[in-house]
């Protein structure tokens, strides 16, 4: 029990460390909020300018895209984990984690917590700005349900970050393929437009990752957009992705670290 408690404290310590490092860059928060504001402004006027088929009004499309913009911060956070691992490798602090009783595997999982939770905060800020400045109308009766669903979304996205972190441990590059994976997921996940507009083979790809289910479900809960499938099906998909991919990604990370230790490349960066 005391070990579990100590491990829990270590998880919190990693989060606290990342918070302190984040806060030490005083302009970072302002910069991120401004970026969200600029994106909202851009899409607000795009929604006014064009008529998007499948949407009753300009506001309906704006609501659709705001949820997408909010979710992309979660996607970016999960794909920031490989870069964080790379920074730790360069700074020599990864060795410190690896040689601690807490260990590198729990360390990598722990270092993903702050960015993921912060992306949750940023998504909330984006939605709030959308409401306050651009008149976005939230579906308040189902907004509270969106909170636990968001945590589930975070859990279903986390394995992608851990998978790429495993790759980083082996090849020592943090951004190998992450940019195009994010771009691809933005398209097949229906970030800016409904996936029904995509060719049928891409629509199949849309069903093979959790991003589409997450955006559909959160749009339904936050702005009341209709769902292509039942909420239970979307929820099951997210649970399924998290349940299968999370242990798989952790096992791969463990293998990557062991490989590095066997070859001696774990000390390289």
């Amino acid at each position, binding site marked *: 029990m*005391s*070990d*579990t*408690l*100590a*491990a829990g*404290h*270590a998880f*919190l*310590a*990693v989060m*606290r*460390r990342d918070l*302190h*490092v984040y806060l*030490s*860059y005083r302009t970072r928060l302002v910069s991120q909020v401004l970026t969200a504001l600029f994106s909202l402004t851009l899409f607000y006027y795009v929604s006014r300018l064009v008529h998007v088929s499948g949407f009753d009004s300009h506001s309906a499309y704006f609501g659709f895209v705001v949820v997408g913009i909010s979710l992309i911060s979660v996607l970016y956070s999960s794909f920031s984990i490989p870069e964080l691992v790379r920074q730790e490798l360069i*700074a*020599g*602090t990864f*060795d*410190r*984690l*690896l*040689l*601690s*009783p*807490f*260990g590198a*595997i*729990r*360390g990598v*999982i722990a270092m993903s917590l702050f960015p993921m939770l912060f992306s949750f905060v940023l998504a909330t800020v984006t939605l709030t700005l959308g409401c306050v400045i651009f008149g976005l109308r939230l579906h308040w009766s189902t907004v509270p349900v969106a909170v636990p669903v968001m945590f589930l979304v975070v859990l279903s996205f986390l394995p992608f970050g851990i998978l790429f972190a495993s790759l980083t441990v082996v090849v020592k590059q943090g951004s190998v393929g992450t940019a195009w994976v994010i771009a691809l997921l933005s398209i097949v996940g229906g970030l800016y437009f409904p996936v029904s507009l995509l060719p049928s083979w891409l629509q199949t790809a849309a069903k093979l990752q959790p991003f589409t289910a997450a955006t559909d479900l959160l749009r339904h809960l936050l702005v009341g957009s209709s769902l292509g499938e039942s909420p239970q099906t979307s929820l099951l998909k997210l649970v399924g992705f998290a349940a299968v991919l999370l*242990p798989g990604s*952790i*096992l791969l990370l*463990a*293998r990557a670290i*062991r490989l590095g*230790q*066997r070859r*001696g490349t*774990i*000390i390289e960066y």
Partner: protein
Amino acid sequence: MTPRSLDIAEPELGATGTLERLVGARPTESSPESDSAPLRLGGLRKRWRKDLPLVLDGLDLTLERGTTTWVGGRNGVGKTTMLRVAAGLIDADSGCVEVWGIAPGENRVRYQQLVSFLPAGDRGLYARLTVRRQLEFCARIAMVPRARFGETVEHAIATFDLSELAERRVDRMSMGQRQRLRIAMTFLPSPEVVLLDEPLTSLDSEGMVLIQAAVAEVLARGGAVLWCSPSGEHLEMSFDAHWMLERGKLVAV
């Protein structure tokens, strides 16, 4: 020194309960009361590439309790590799590594509780964190029990004379001050075996005295210290054993 030729145990990832073992292995209490040595390296072999000679060629080393051991040798001879293998950071190709009879692959958590490693150089610090936060983080990942947490951090600050620097960020400190912090982090979890790779880098004479005091604490609780440096920089320090690493083996000095 006792030659050993056992293979290093490696955890199998496909076994039942593997994930639990990987992310949350429970340490089994193993105290240094048995007849095993604080650190035993037996028949270590390590080759970095097939076309290169062995950097460790059947290396044997046993540290006795309450002793300090110095290992010297020219640059690139394999001192750091030996320490990294002993710390559990990298694997040898073959051979045995044990701390109080425990191999790193056998019980990783317990092994890391018993051993602490100071790598050479100035890496391993979070530049944007203060000294105190750095030490607190170090204590947390060392899984120091809650009851001893505050006391452990304060002891490290006091032992290494870091009070005045406690609230200073690492990127605003001199190289010598950073080295003192790195050493404080190495000794913080009260390890049984301390592996030091060129610990005097950038350190002033005051820092040297602080290390001596910390080493004395380790020896007093029956631990052992392995100190590696090229040569001649540790005149103030007395060692119980002196070795030179040559062509992958230790030679008595």
